[in-house]
């Protein structure tokens, strides 16, 4: 019997990171080694750190955690010759609403991520790493612990990695429920045993991160992309995508589609084709209303804006983001007031309360949206929602403030009719 996957793959996928997902026993080291595993590490072991970083730069890989920062460049910021030891941290906090891909990379191919971490270790001369996994993913922490134990027992972690005499230790670390801990500096505080409150930058984690040590922090998918990049060359990975937007990424399609799922698509893949063909279109032949392109923090797109290739630069050009890869599809029956309210309830709940514009802004926005949803909205509230959100932009300590404001501004501006319909006391069905 074939392995039961979370969702059936689509023939339109380009499977690079996910190519082993469907293999029986894909989570084991044996299957990994039989299917290209550790070829990249052995190759990297023969390369200089500069050459490894150049290869990652050539791949045009950009961080898959949300901000899309060029990975090779980030690696080059870590002071490799600092007298302080360097630390690698994997962000497996995965909590941006709409995002469910890191889970699969750990569940189906943990050794690919481990190999990516080891290559990063060679590049920045680090010998220890921590995988910070959200607490709700306990079953994944256990799977990761098993994969790590297997790698140790077979000599792919520890004092003599793959027989090269090079040393690396890897551990998991459980979170305990806090979206804010996905923000890299809050994550570091959390890793140190404190509340997850973001830190002032600079210094950036590359210079002073976990326990004040130089720290290289990337998302699960970013590390998982490293073995194919080193094995087949940065140029080959880059060529899968569009210029400056290298490779493939795991796109999590959810909401109103016939075949929701996580699909690996090249950067620059047409958004409408992803909705209509990869995800099987909208149920009941209903029309598209809007798309959240990359997790709830991204400005929303109207149906008419969706005829675009999915890459970082195109999304930036139309004022949104590719974010974390969480693409949420909304059909014509969606009530945007209810949708905006749910987004704001989330950010208000998750605001760590450290700075006033975010703490107060999310509280007020939630109150106004709640009032609107309950049918007591006033016409002035529509512009007030926009103004309050705009006032938060750029005034908060970390990006959560912007993440709450941006979708709200876009929903209020692009779907004003939905709000007006509430004024006329006529609700739209969800």
């Amino acid at each position: 019997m074939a392995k039961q996957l979370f969702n059936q793959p689509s023939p339109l996928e380009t499977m690079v990171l996910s190519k082993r997902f469907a293999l029986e026993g894909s989570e084991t080291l044996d299957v990994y080694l039989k299917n290209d595993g550790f070829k990249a590490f052995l190759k990297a072991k023969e390369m200089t750190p500069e050459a490894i970083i150049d290869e990652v730069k050539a791949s045009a890989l950009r961080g898959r955690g949300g901000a899309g920062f060029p990975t090779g460049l980030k690696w080059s910021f870590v002071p490799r010759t600092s007298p302080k030891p360097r630390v690698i941290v994997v962000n497996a906090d995965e909590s941006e609403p709409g995002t469910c891909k890191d889970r699969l990379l750990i569940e189906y191919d943990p050794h690919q991520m481990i190999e990516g971490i080891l290559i990063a270790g060679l590049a920045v001369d680090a010998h220890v790493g921590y995988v910070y996994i959200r607490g709700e993913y306990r079953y994944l922490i256990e799977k990761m612990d098993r994969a790590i134990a297997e790698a140790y027992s077979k000599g792919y972690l520890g004092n003599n990695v793959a027989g090269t005499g090079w040393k690396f230790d890897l551990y998991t670390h459980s979170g305990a429920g806090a979206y804010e801990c996905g923000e890299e500096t809050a994550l570091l505080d959390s890793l140190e045993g404190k509340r997850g409150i973001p830190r002032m930058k600079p210094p950036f984690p590359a210079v002073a991160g976990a326990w004040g040590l130089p720290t290289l922090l990337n998302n699960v998918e970013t590390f998982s992309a490293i073995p194919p990049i080193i094995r087949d060359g940065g140029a080959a990975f880059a060529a899968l995508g569009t210029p400056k937007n290298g490779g493939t990424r795991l796109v999590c399609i959810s909401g109103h589609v016939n075949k929701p799922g996580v699909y690996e698509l090249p950067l620059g893949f047409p958004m409408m084709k992803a909705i209509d063909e990869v995800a099987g279109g909208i149920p009941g032949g209903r029309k598209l209303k809007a798309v959240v392109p990359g997790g709830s923090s991204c400005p929303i797109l109207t149906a008419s804006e969706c005829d675009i290739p999915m890459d970082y630069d195109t999304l930036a050009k139309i004022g949104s983001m590719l974010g974390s890869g969480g693409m949420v599809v909304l059909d014509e029956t969606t009530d945007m007031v209810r949708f905006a309210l749910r987004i704001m309830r989330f950010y208000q709940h998750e605001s760590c309360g450290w700075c006033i514009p975010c703490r107060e802004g999310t509280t007020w926005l939630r109150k106004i949206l709640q009032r609107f949803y309950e049918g007591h909205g006033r016409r002035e509230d529509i512009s007030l929602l926009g103004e309050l959100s705009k006032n938060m932009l750029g005034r908060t300590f970390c990006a959560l403030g912007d993440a709450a404001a941006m979708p709200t501004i876009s929903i209020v501006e692009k779907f004003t009719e939905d709000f007006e319909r509430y004024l006329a006391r006529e609700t739209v069905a969800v």
Partner: protein
Amino acid sequence: MTFSPQLEEIFAKMLQQYPEGRTRSAVVPMLIYAQDEVGSVNRELIEEVARRCKVTPLQVDEVVGYYSMLHRKPMGKYHVQVCTNISCLLVGGEELYESAKKKLGIGHKQVTADGQFSLEEVECMGACSWAPAVEINYDFHHFVTPEKLNQLIDSLKRAQ
């Protein structure tokens, strides 16, 4: 305080995995693993974790309120967490949560009188493409309908 041998083994490893003198890092993971065994984060547990991680009880106490999975009062034997965030919302997450409230006769973060079930409306739990999603303790359930959740709850009741 002592824990089960399995947990003691996990804790022994945990305390060694951070750089020299950085046992404070084990506070949050230790609390969450211990809570699963003890039932809640009570005074005694706070002091025990503080002792083991070589920090003050206050330093442990201050993280308890911050992390949503840490509870000062025991939750039910089965903690039912229903996601109503955007991807789940679009395909019936709120209706599912309402139906769970009715089925269990309790609200957000409440526990049934017999201590068997508790309910929580939660934020996105990384199951968006298989929504609506429910997590019972640490078990994920995907594409959950009110009927499926009712059956699930009934089977847990019968299993007691």
